[in-house]
């Protein structure tokens, strides 16, 4: 298999690497960079467990080729808390009981982050739509939606 040289930034750390052209971003994150916070459950674009942010936008890392993200910025769950401080979404997920088995959590939090970054004060319906691509089989979603709304309320209103 042909390999290519790429540079990319993951969680604000720069990497220089050679990857086979058929490998997905998911594989490179989990296997080469040992960032196992990102999960996968279908490798088919349907469950959202592999969600990461690419330049701030939601992507399914199982459907994204690593060579296609050359030169771009990737955010995964492993890099979300800063200096031991939880991201407000992580804190809200904990506080509002939005985590059960935790397997959907990384993808769920990143989908929520992308939403709040572009739209800090969404309605409940907008929250539900934003996470519709993320399956959770444990929680029934109610507490996840609540956690996202609470986190959004902590973001100051800009007038």
């Amino acid at each position, binding site marked *: 298999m042909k390999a290519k040289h790429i540079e990319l930034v993951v969680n604000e750390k720069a990497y220089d690497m050679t990857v086979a052209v058929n490998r997905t971003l998911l594989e490179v994150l989990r296997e080469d960079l040992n960032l196992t916070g990102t999960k996968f459950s279908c490798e088919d674009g349907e469950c959202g467990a592999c969600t990461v942010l690419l330049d701030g936008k939601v992507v399914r890392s199982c459907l994204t080729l690593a060579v296609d993200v050359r030169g771009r910025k990737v955010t995964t769950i492993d890099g979300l808390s800063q200096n031991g401080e939880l991201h407000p979404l992580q804190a809200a997920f904990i506080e509002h009981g939005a985590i*059960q088995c*935790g397997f959907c959590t990384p993808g769920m939090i990143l989908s929520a982050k992308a939403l709040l970054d572009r739209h800090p004060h969404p309605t409940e319906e907008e929250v539900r*739509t934003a996470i519709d691509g993320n399956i959770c089989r444990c929680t029934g979603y109610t507490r996840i939606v609540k956690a996202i709304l609470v986190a959004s309320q902590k973001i100051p209103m800009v007038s």
Partner: protein
Amino acid sequence: MCSYSVVGKGISRVDVMEKATGAAQYTFDIRLPGMLYGKVLRSPYAHARIVHIDTSRAEHLKGVKALICGRDIPPRGLFHLGDQTLLATDKVRFVGEPVAAVAATDRDTADEALDLIEVDYEELPPLFDPEEAMAEGALLIHEKLGEYHRLMPWLHPIPGTNICHLTKLRRGDVEAGFREAYRVYENRFTTSMVQHCSLEPHVAVAAVGATGDITLYASTQSPFLVRERLSHVFQIPISKMRVIVPYVGGGFGAKSAVTTVEPIAVGLALKAQAPVKLQLDRSEEFTSTVVRHPTVINLKTGVSRDGKLLASKAKVIWDTGAYADDGPFVARWGGLTASGPYQIENVWNDSCCVYTNKAVAGAFRGFGCSQITWAHESQMDIIARDLGIDPLEIRLKNAVEEGATAAWGEKLHSVGLKASLRAAAEAIGWGKKLPPGTGMGIACMHKFTVALMSSAMVKVNDDGRVEVFKGSIEMGQGNNTIVTQIASEVIGVPVEQISVPEIDTRFSPYNGGTFGSRDTFMVGNAVRLAAEDARRQLLKAAAEMLKVPFEELRCEGGRVFSSENPAEGVYLAEIAYYSNASPAGPIIGKSGYSLKGIPFRGIPLDPETGQSERPAACWTYAAQAAEVTVDKDTGTVRILKLVAAHDVGRAINPTNCEQQIEGALVMGIGTTLYEELGLDAGRIVNPSFADYKVPRASDVPELVPIIIEAPHRDGPFGAKGVGEPGLAPTAAAIGNAICATTSVRLKDLPITPEKIFSEMKEREA
């Protein structure tokens, strides 16, 4: 009521920090040095004889390190009935059955190797319909049914048929009850084949040590069962078979038995003499792992004019697919409970577990209770409507209560059924006037809690931290939090000072398995007793250290002190340090738990009548109510509100109980309205999340979980489990609400818009 400091509080779960940051490790994340990747070749036929397997080309592929097929494996049975080996030997019995497996240096090579294995099959006529499979003269799926080794003496296969188990329940004189009845109702209900869809797939990593000992990481609910079965299959002593279970990313029953994944991983690792990871992909999850039993449930109910249930007869057929797996257990419990949580003098049930050439059905959250409840609660609604009695009233009139005798002969205790019914009715506004097009439905249930046995160990470390060792799995249900609260309450240490290590059969005490809603009750009791033991040891050592009588000492906030003079005290760390040097040794509390005077599997059922004084650890009860609208032009159902009142005995952690109920309700919505594995000649046609719809965030209505507490005298602090019941009454509550607004009564799950629409059209015509 006495008050507790931690029990009864909705504290935040103990494992959420790791899970929120992505640091939590699952079997899925395990990688060992030199690890190979396993892949499984599966049967394309529903029923065929294996004539020949040629593996030579695959074996010579570069990168292939091991290949196994039926002729290489130990011929010993995997599970209860001994009807299944880890790979097919002479026959395949369902599409998706493992036929051969390879381990290679990478996944692509393993895939390529599968393509190079040539299997000659001779197709046999398949059986897909369980009723046909039960008919006299039907071809046999297991010709040697009578010869299989039965792990449980009560298993009741009928040789020369496709019936792998039959449970009978007989009480009173059902025919006399029907004769006496004002009316008799006969209806047939069915349920679909559905999938658990845990987000973490089935996965196992096996490694062989220098002395032939095996270490297995597995995403399983039952590490001790897996250990015992693998040790049997591979004839390895139990002490050389080590099973480690990190966090499990959802189980819902699919991981509660030994599956083919763990033994195939071990078989490959033994052959390759290298670590092997075997992880199923999503389509294999859909096509090769256990499913929820499709059922056919025929109910006949005799009722007095005022709605008193006089006689109930149920013939339940559990379509268990190609192998028995947990099917006989499901059928057994279904056979006991099929007449519902009602006081009925005359009951007759036959609960039959039947082989077909389909995916294997096994444990699924609810363990048969969901299917049974769908039937008896739809039936109750049919009766209420026909007699013109309010559906809530007819249930209250017949509901079991404290001291009532169940159909299986047990005198019931801790029965929060009527309270659940009233609470659910109140929360939904039962009886209020509804806008046109809107309807309400109610349903209730009873569910057993499996007993078995559990044990626990509570250790106080030199830094004063307390570790709770137990054999139950944390799979998202919150068990680590529950045992933390129990230990904290008993010993008198803050929850922050307690940790719960992952399960490792080398250190963790035995547990029957994380299923059947049993861990809060059984493991909870073992932890309670072990913590009491640890506390006793702490006080004893402190008494020596402080020279204060034992009786005068108290432990609070992680410190033992004299109740006379609280300033005089020692911290747990100091006691642990002292104790290490004393003849008493380290502070390690321990205990086992099973029900007093009762065999650990419960009192066996009488084989002819199903009667038993106490077949289960306890029973839980619930009632749910739904408010729905139905679009008259499309048949589309919109659920406006779902309320669920569950008797949990006592809530150790109310938030955790609510979380379990909410999650189950949403699973209940899916299995009621759309979840169904479609089959074409035995092949599952929708093996993906694109084609098998599970509920998404925008499908979820307002959910109202309500906790009812009818404490159980044997439960830890009175608690009972609540993991499974949450989706059992949901289908009937929704179905009854649909009927209330459309007059359409659907008896087959799932209730799709097409079915509603065509029924509505038929009624118009």
